[in-house]
């Protein structure tokens, strides 16, 4: 009887081991049968670029089963540092390179633009940068002060850490702490639904998602900035001021797998992924 008591858990454990073993071995077998490209790439950096890079990496892996791509986020500065020190094969940076970073090679895989949106019924047609700053710091709290009707302004802001907030605050030289919001939202769709449901709201979202919704019947409008219309076309041609490039950076001119992946990330074949994440294709 004693013997049985030890045997039972042991056999259960062993069965579990074999079962798990069989789980892990089958994809390995598939790998060996596949194409010649082999190796591992490590990408680190901007949390804006990371989700996009991860999707592109997934597609690259499925086309090159011998390759493993590891994408880690940790901010643009980590992307720069890791690429420089060779900790990562490729760094991800959600801005243009600064002057003291010109030793690195940058390859734009997409552009990111942010547009201020209002409800379609709002009579206000444009706002100056200063007016937007005043609205977001609650110095202006009624639409009347900027030429609208007599109604309180509902300020829609993004949650802390979001790249749209970062870009918006950077352009208007605001600290995220100074922004006083009535509603805080997570993703672009939630922002668009919030503004579409409230004629007195003002918000900002990625241009990709705003333009898609505005042209598909959602009652929102995109405000021009400094007289430049907010559109994907104007982000692509770099006329629109609230925008930035999303870069992959390397220490030296890319070679081998590194080069192949960067070319893949800039190719036509991944533009659907870029658009899906509301970014603007770079080329």
């Amino acid at each position, binding site marked *: *009887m004693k013997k*049985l*008591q030890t045997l*039972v*858990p042991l056999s*259960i454990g062993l069965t579990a081991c074999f079962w798990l073993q069989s789980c892990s071995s089958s994809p390995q077998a598939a790998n060996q049968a596949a194409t010649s490209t082999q190796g591992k790439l490590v990408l680190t950096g901007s*949390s*804006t670029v990371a*989700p996009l890079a991860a999707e592109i990496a997934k597609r690259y892996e499925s086309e090159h089963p011998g390759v493993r791509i590891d994408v880690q*986020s*940790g*901010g643009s500065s980590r992307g720069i540092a890791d690429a420089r020190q060779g900790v990562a094969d490729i760094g991800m940076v959600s801005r243009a390179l600064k002057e003291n970073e010109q030793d690195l090679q940058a390859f734009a895989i997409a552009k990111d633009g942010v547009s201020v949106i209002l409800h379609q019924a709002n009579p206000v047609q444009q706002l100056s940068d200063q007016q937007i700053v005043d609205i977001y710091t609650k110095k202006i709290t009624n639409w009347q002060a900027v030429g609208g009707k007599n*109604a*309180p302004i*509902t300020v829609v802001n993004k*949650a*802390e*850490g*979001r*790249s749209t907030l970062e870009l918006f605050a950077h352009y208007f030289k605001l*600290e*995220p*702490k100074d922004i006083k*919001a*009535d*509603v*805080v*939202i*997570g993703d672009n769709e*939630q922002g668009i*639904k*919030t503004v579409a*449901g*409230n004629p*007195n*709201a003002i918000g900002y979202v990625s241009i990709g998602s705003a333009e898609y919704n505005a042209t598909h019947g959602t009652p929102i409008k995109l405000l021009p900035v400094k007289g430049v219309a907010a559109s994907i076309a104007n982000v692509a041609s770099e006329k629109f001021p609230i925008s930035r490039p999303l870069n992959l950076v390397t220490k030296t001119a890319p070679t081998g797998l590194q080069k192949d992946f960067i070319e893949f990330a800039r190719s036509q074949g991944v533009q659907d992924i870029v658009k899906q994440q509301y970014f603007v294709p770079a080329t």
Partner: protein
Amino acid sequence: MLNSNTSSQRRNETLLLWLLRGLALISGAIILLILFFLIWEAIPLFQQVGLSRFFTDPSWHPASNEFNLTPMLAGTLLVTAASVLIATPLGILSAVFCHYYTPPAIAQLYRRLIELLAGIPSVVYGFWGLVVLVPLINRIHPPGPSLLAGTLILTLMILPTIALVSDASLASVAPEYIKGAAALGLGRWAMIRGVVLPAARSGLITGVILETGRAIGETMAVLMVCGNVVQVPHSLFDPVRTLTANIALEMAYAVDNHRAALFVSGLVLMGLIALLVAIAELLNRGQYD
């Protein structure tokens, strides 16, 4: 013959016993692992800024090292308390209606409806709240996304839980009690208040605990209708952020200390649930002593 039979039976029992022990060990270990993981992820931040700053910092701006969780704790508690306060009487009364004030056919239909209500995914409630309820509240008192909106949506979501559990616990009240009450000549309402509800107390308390747990943990719907501004609300129309919404909103982009701070939010939530379980345990113990 008889001997060998009992021996094989005993062997089966031992097998079952060890299987059950193993499964229990796994369930227990999962909880401990989760707790361990939460603490593991939060500890670097604790070491850096200490415990008290999560309650004394001027505000919640994790990117600039301000980690005050109190407004969100208040948000969670207020939304939960308000919705439980509304849903509990509604749920219990709906069960009473089902059992004592309506013909069985209608009661059956009504029960099915409540079950249907329980099956609707939370994101649907949230979406409905965002496109219907919030604009409606906005017309009464801007901005719209508010403590009120969150409370109403949560009430809708936890109502089926309390209604169904109350229904089941009313059904399990011994028929002798009811017959006895009828024999004493008690009216229907007097019988329900004086006999049925006290007899079903333990089940009703379980229902309240379950609905409170669901209300604390609800994320998507609350995230969509509450406005998520980090502040202690001064009125029903002020936006609030709950702890769960805080994690869901910021996790996608959180790094380093910010990420650790979100794990602290998770720890606080876990603490709340532990408190709830402890209260339930105390209430139930009071019942049997």
